[in-house]
């Protein structure tokens, strides 16, 4: 009952951060449409190793769409031609027999290439370090039910918090902006009383760090929202802008 397809891959190869990159072409036969995109790459790599060649380096880990590690730009779309999924959840049934598939790394000034399809997303950690938290130490906190939180706020905070930090929003944006990522964290914490206390400081510090790290400006094209595997809403960017402006006004 199993369906298989033959495909042609055009894969970005780059030996190291400073090396010159190029596309390399491979042909794969009899790929099960039930296999995931990354399993297809595993098959490619197995073949390369058996031929004594270097396998294609790509980031991946949980393979269930939650760790945010996988990061492939497939046929011009971050995470490829399916909606609301990460690359690891993309399956080969989304491709046709005989199709050419182009695979590139995330391309953005904020995410330099390390090798082949692997990029450095350390900038996201730096933005979180600048203020993406509630400043409480371990211990000495009130009972979890001491502060009731309206369910709609908690739910909305959860929606914003479901960002997996993969960077598809940056890769999708023609300006290479990290606004959707930053706004998701700012929104989550601004919606909760625990995070509200230092909301202004957080918005200012995270935005300043984002600007400093070379991410572009947001021009509200919405490409990030379309490509986000977790459906993070543009409404978060509006909330970030509000938080940021009111923080600036307090200065």
């Amino acid at each position: 009952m199993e369906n298989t397809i033959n495909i042609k891959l055009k894969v970005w190869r780059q030996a190291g951060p400073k090396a010159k990159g190029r596309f390399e072409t491979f042909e794969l036969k009899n790929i099960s449409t039930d296999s995931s995109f990354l399993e297809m790459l595993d098959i490619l790599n197995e073949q390369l190793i058996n031929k004594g060649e270097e396998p294609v380096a790509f980031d991946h880990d949980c393979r269930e769409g939650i760790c945010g590690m996988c990061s492939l730009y497939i046929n011009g779309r971050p995470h490829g031609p399916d909606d609301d999924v990460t690359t690891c959840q993309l399956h080969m049934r989304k491709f046709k027999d005989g199709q050419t598939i182009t695979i590139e790394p995330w391309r953005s000034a904020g995410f330099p290439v390390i090798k082949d399809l692997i990029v450095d997303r350390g900038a996201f950690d730096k933005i979180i370090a600048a203020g993406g938290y509630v400043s409480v130490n371990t211990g000495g906190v009130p009972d979890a039910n001491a502060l009731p939180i309206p369910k709609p706020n908690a739910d909305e905070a959860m929606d914003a918090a479901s960002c997996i930090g993969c960077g598809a929003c940056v890769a999708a944006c023609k300006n290479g902006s990290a606004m959707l990522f930053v706004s998701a964290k700012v929104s989550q914490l601004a919606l909760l009383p625990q995070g509200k206390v230092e909301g202004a400081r957080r918005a200012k510090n995270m935005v300043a760090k984002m600007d400093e790290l070379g991410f572009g400006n947001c021009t509200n094209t919405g490409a990030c929202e379309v490509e986000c595997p977790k459906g993070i809403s543009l409404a978060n960017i509006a909330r970030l802008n509000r938080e940021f402006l009111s923080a600036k006004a307090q200065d």
Partner: protein
Amino acid sequence: MVKIDAKIPEGPLADKWKNYKNNQKLVNPANKRKLDIIVVGTGLAGASAAASFGEMGFNVKTFTIQDSPRRAHSIAAQGGINAAKNYPNDGDSIYRLFYDTVKGGDYRAREANVHRLAEVSNSIIDQCVAQGVPFAREYGGLLDNRSFGGAQVSRTFYAKGQTGQQLLLGAYQALMRQVNEGNVELHTRNEMVEIVMVDGKARGIISRNLVTGKLERHFAHAVVLATGGYGNTFFLSTNAMGSNGSAAMKAYKKGAMFANPCFAQIHPTCIPVHGEFQSKLTLMSESLRNDGRIWVPKKKEDAEAIRAGKLKPTEIAEEDRDYYLERRYPAFGNLVPRDVASRAAKERCDAGFGVGTTGLAVYLDFKSAIDRLGRDAIEARYGNLFQMYEKIVDDNPYETPMMIYPAIHYTMGGIWVDYELQTSVPGLFAAGEANFSDHGANRLGASALMQGLADGYFVLPYTIQNYLADDIATPRMTTEEKEFEEAENAAKGRFEKLMSINGEKSVDSLHKELGLVMWDFVGMARNKEGLQEAIEKIQAIKKEFWSNVRIPGSTGGMNVELEKASRLADFIEIGELMARDALHREESCGGHFREEYQTEEGEALRQDDKFAYSGCWAYKGEDQEPELNKEELTFDVVKLVQRNYK
């Protein structure tokens, strides 16, 4: 055999942790600044420990193999985290959580540790809420709870189907705050490859920078391993691709005992295997068993017709379905513990009632819940899980029942630790899934998150001080010392040896061979002959690996195949250790099921008079048989009985 001292504090069970804290040694703030701690791993246990140490004023260095601490596999935990809050007023208490955990673990855990875990569970929820973790709430604004296997109360806090993600992000953010304040130095894409010992104490690590390939030396007064479990020994598991047991093996070879390696958890609700190129198995959260009913056809001919694609599950009449968990365990029904549910699924499939093309699957059906509560309610509870299932299997679980089958998920065994979470190597600590401490022979659902955060937020910050208080006069060592050089040379020699093999077989192909042996002989049902055969087969794979593995590239720069090969070398040794431990443990308990030891009804049969101990294996040298030591378990409070979920 060495005598094992778990350093359990004096006093009645409920007072032990209080007594410990009252009498432990402390380190004053000025001295904390002079002390360095290395934390390897940034999952729930590692991130929460590193953040807490940083807040306390220690100098912390933390290491992760991923590009960011936020990627650790704790992130994939779906269902929830247990705590004894008793918010639903359904009779829960610290004692009950303790009791359920000891019973769920089939009486193979240390009472004092488990009680401490239950005691600190409530503080974890408080801490996470203060950090801004968006737990699910009721309309009144207070926290919501759900039920999990092995409990008759609702004590599980959750954040949609992404509880692990939210808790990890909370710990990660606390960690990044300490990075920002300069208390924690973060090393990403950096793997510990050796522990450095000085005068019998752990004093640092050698790590490999995975981007440059360079080996690095790092000193610390104490080292914490929070590097997760070794489930990937089986190749196919629900673990992330990078999850590995290498740090544990490095510790083992430096003298840390490895306890109960055969206690591995097979999770009942995973998406079944689909083909030989499959890279991993996907878990469907246990929380689904709150509303899903598990069944197979009552008639063999129906099962055969389904396997042949001639019949659909929705065409099987209600009276022709066997809800075998509800039938066998009326009191707990679909919410029996994981080991019980897994074995029951295997029993039905082995008897010829399995479904799916392979016959190795059972149904998890939401029809009665959808009829009762409506599709929207089910979508609100499990929407993301249903979506995940549909993306993988290309089948709509709102309309046809899900297919599930057991898969390796979690390892209860791990590095042996005493009450202070210190290994048998002084100055070397282990936390979270990496240690063996709290779950006995079977872990209950929603207890891994609890244990990881308990160890990191509320146990290690106390116990590590008790150790470091004696070290306040120990100056920082330079890494030019000979111990660091020797350790680096050992690591370097190992990588060069791997690269020099230049054989014919890829790392993955050898790993798959190992995985098949593990699943067939050291999996859900084990027996003496099979385990003996497994040991021989694993030793043959080891030989094949060290003479015939092919690793392209070089030791310089990023080399993913070299990383994988180095980890597989350790998985092979863990596999052998698991088989040895399973062979020696002539009883069935929790996740360890020996076919020779079962009741007439097929339930696990413990041998308490002979095996009420933790089996602690000590390394005795390359190709030498390891030595078994025993930590006898004493049960002062809980009475040992056969687990009964009927």
